[in-house]
């Protein structure tokens, strides 16, 4: 059990890191892109804009918690 927890912890730290909110927002942005694209509306612009917002928010959170 400890090994499984450690394994999960390692991959969480490795991929998600110290800002889980950024990961959640990226997932939401991808979901919205998929929904727009499947409605046959141009959707390529959404991810760059979303990343700009997520990065800014993530930086503010990192600075606040420093």
């Amino acid at each position: 059990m400890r090994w499984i927890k450690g394994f999960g912890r390692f991959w969480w730290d490795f991929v998600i890191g110290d800002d889980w909110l950024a990961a959640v927002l990226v997932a939401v942005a991808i979901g919205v892109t998929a929904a727009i694209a499947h409605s046959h509306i141009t959707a390529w612009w959404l991810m760059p804009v979303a990343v700009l917002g997520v990065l800014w928010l993530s930086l503010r959170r990192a600075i606040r918690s420093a």
Partner: protein
Amino acid sequence: MSTGNTFLILSAFLASAVEMVEALTIVLASGLARGWKSSLAGLGAATVVLAVLVAALGPALTAIPLNALRLAVGALLLVFGLQWLRKAILRASGYKELHDEDAIFARELAEAQGAEHLERAGLDWYGFVLSFKGVLLEGLEVVFIVLTFGSAQGSIPLAAVGAAGALVLVAGVGIAVRAPLARVPENLMKFSVGVMLTTFGIFWSTEGAGAHWPGSDASLLGVLGFVIAVSVLLVRLLRRERMEAVPA
């Protein structure tokens, strides 16, 4: 060679070089403090584990449909890349300390020199484990990048070429100077890797979600330009904000 493939090799090279510089620091500290036999055995054992991982996961990834793979890989790279980019921007704007390979080497060396001697299988166990863990952990990032970049772009061998080039360069320079590569512009390289991971993450997650880029692969250049411009702008903004916050 297409824009995508050029980026693929360059990104794999840069990301691998950064991780290998860090792994080299640990192997050197272990070798100098605990003996080269144990340190090199740890390096060799970790390399075998990493090679097995690539051999096992590589073919499995290529069996997944490309759009599903790009969606998963794009999302992973984007989350992973934003971590790198955030840290790089915080370092460049002065909110986070710069990565100092000399200081890390001194700390690892002091810890390794102070540890008790325990011999197993004819090796100094501390030296072996230190080197093994260091190479395995840094190497896992290389494996992750090579497999995700390679599979999503449709060529794991091309990504492996980039990583192999970095290995040859870092190992060669490491053997020649026998000191941590403190003069490597590591923070600039990390910034570049963060930019590239984020660029590929945006590109593939968008394609995987079912949207199409105008100009197909060529739009990678546009995404790259956008990510660089945003990152530089954020560094300037945060740097100015930090300077204004410091009392005169």
